């Protein structure tokens, strides 16, 4: 076990994993995060806590991760390369490990142009590939990016962060034929699991998965298909036109346009997509991003009959190896 996280154990046991995003609030509200965690606690393997999602300032993903962990939900802490350099990110990784956070998802991050602080200066010291590589080096070699051992003094024990490393993949981005190779690079860099952009186009998703299989990738990484339920055609069009990396076929838009009850239709479409992807070779789980429609998450998971087995999530800090060992 690399981290011993519930997500890692779920994959190791060959079970189907279910994750969903919990969007940290903009206000310093523990209560709101607890409420969101409680809504999904019994339905998820783990929950992703986004990092200034859509380039908009929110509670930090590390703080939000610990808050949901205290509410009994295993967190997947997201890190973008947009807002922090390699020093700040490593500090966060060590801090997260100290707080008992065991899953970290590495993403490049939307450009700040799309968010609430377009006048900010971005960082992008690392790209997502370099970030994955750095986390793997920290975990597997016990070394910081500069090569120094992760310890306090030369005689102290090395204490690597025990983390399960996640990456994002967009099977629908261009150039499409290069996307499976980019997945291969992320795996080579150190990705243990992958969450994809929302799947609306099953044909393209299948092609990507097929190519990943041909390249021998699906044995090397746990792929979770992204699902985003929407309750109106406006939401679909907004995503198509304004959210980077989204690919929504015309047929999906047409179906929603013609629906008598768009909310019902949106639910059915998401459910059909879950059922279609969950049995595909290489899909080891689904990742729900129900932006603005969080309460549908438990309903979809129940309807798709993929509720994970209940497991007690360990709370609290990791055993402190440094103090336990000889210092």
């Amino acid at each position, binding site marked *: 076990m690399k981290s011993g996280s519930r997500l890692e154990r779920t994959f190791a046991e060959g079970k189907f994993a279910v994750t969903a995003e919990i969007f940290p609030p903009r206000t310093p509200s523990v209560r709101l995060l607890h409420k969101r965690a409680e809504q999904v606690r019994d339905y998820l393997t783990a929950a992703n806590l986004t990092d200034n999602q859509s380039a908009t300032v929110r509670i930090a993903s590390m703080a939000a991760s610990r808050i949901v962990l205290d509410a009994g939900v295993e967190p997947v802490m997201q890190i973008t*390369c*947009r807002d922090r350099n*390699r020093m700040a990110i490593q500090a966060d990784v060590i801090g997260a490990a100290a707080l008992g956070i065991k899953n970290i998802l590495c993403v*490049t*991050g*939307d*450009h700040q*142009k*799309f968010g609430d602080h377009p006048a900010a200066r*971005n960082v*992008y*010291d*690392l*790209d*997502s*590939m*370099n970030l994955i*590589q*750095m986390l793997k080096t920290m975990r597997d070699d016990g070394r910081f*990016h500069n090569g120094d051992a992760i310890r306090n003094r030369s005689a102290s024990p090395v204490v690597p962060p025990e983390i399960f490393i996640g990456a*994002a*993949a*967009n099977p629908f*981005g*261009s*150039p499409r034929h*290069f996307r499976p*190779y*980019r997945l*291969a*690079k992320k795996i*080579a*860099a150190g990705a243990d699991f992958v969450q994809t*952009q929302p799947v609306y186009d099953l044909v393209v998703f299948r092609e990507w998965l097929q190519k990943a299989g041909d390249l021998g990738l699906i044995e090397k990484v746990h792929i979770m298909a992204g699902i985003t339920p929407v309750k109106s055609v406006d939401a679909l069009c907004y995503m198509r036109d304004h959210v*980077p*990396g989204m690919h929504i076929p015309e047929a999906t838009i047409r179906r929603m346009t013609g629906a008598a009850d768009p909310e019902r239709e949106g639910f059915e479409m998401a459910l059909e997509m879950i059922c279609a992807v969950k049995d595909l070779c290489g899909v080891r789980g689904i990742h729900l991003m129900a932006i603005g429609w969080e309460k549908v998450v438990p309903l979809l998971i129940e309807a798709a009959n993929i509720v994970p087995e209940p497991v007690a999530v360990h709370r609290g800090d990791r055993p402190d190896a440094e103090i336990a060992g000889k210092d």
Partner: protein
Amino acid sequence: MIVGKQKPIEEILEKTASFGSILVVGCGGCVTVCHAGGEKEVGILAEQLELRAMALHRPLTVIPGMAERQCDTEFIEQLRDDMDRVEAVLTIGCGAGAQTLASVFPQKPVIPGLNTRFIGAQVEHMNWAERCIGCGDCVIGDFGGLCPVARCSKHLLNGPCGGSNNGHCEMDPELDCIWDLIIRKLEASGQLDRLLEVTPARNWQTSRAGGVRRQKHEDSAL
């Protein structure tokens, strides 16, 4: 070359309003080529200042001037006589030129009339685009002669990001995704395998992150 753009005229008028005599200085280098700070633009700007002063019934002496290269003290020295006759200098040279003026004439207020924008190339007639950010450690040889550091909005070394859409950048549908171009270029030359390896993180010490950069020619003593 350095590409610049003249500041909005209202901003220039506001910053120069308190002076009764101004030397307007252009540069014969890059900003002449991009039609932003050459002799022609000096003439137009001088006229605009005079017209505004006349409209406000305010006395103003405007002297037009040029430096062959404003970033070179040798050429700046040639402006000394004109400089003695004015209260301030308005420059439409780049930031390097403007600061050379300021260091040669420490007593004179220097007002920048141009925004220095980027190191770029003319991609079509009268249309320039950024090509280099002066990172100090050129890597384009690994990427088909194209620079992901300067031309990817997120400086990705292992692109394209998930936002690349039909060959365009998520930032702007008019902007080519440089990673799309890099992939196609290397594919065409049978070198795509170069992109299958992870490019490690950059050492940014040679870039602006390493502090203010200087360069002395080794033969300077000769």
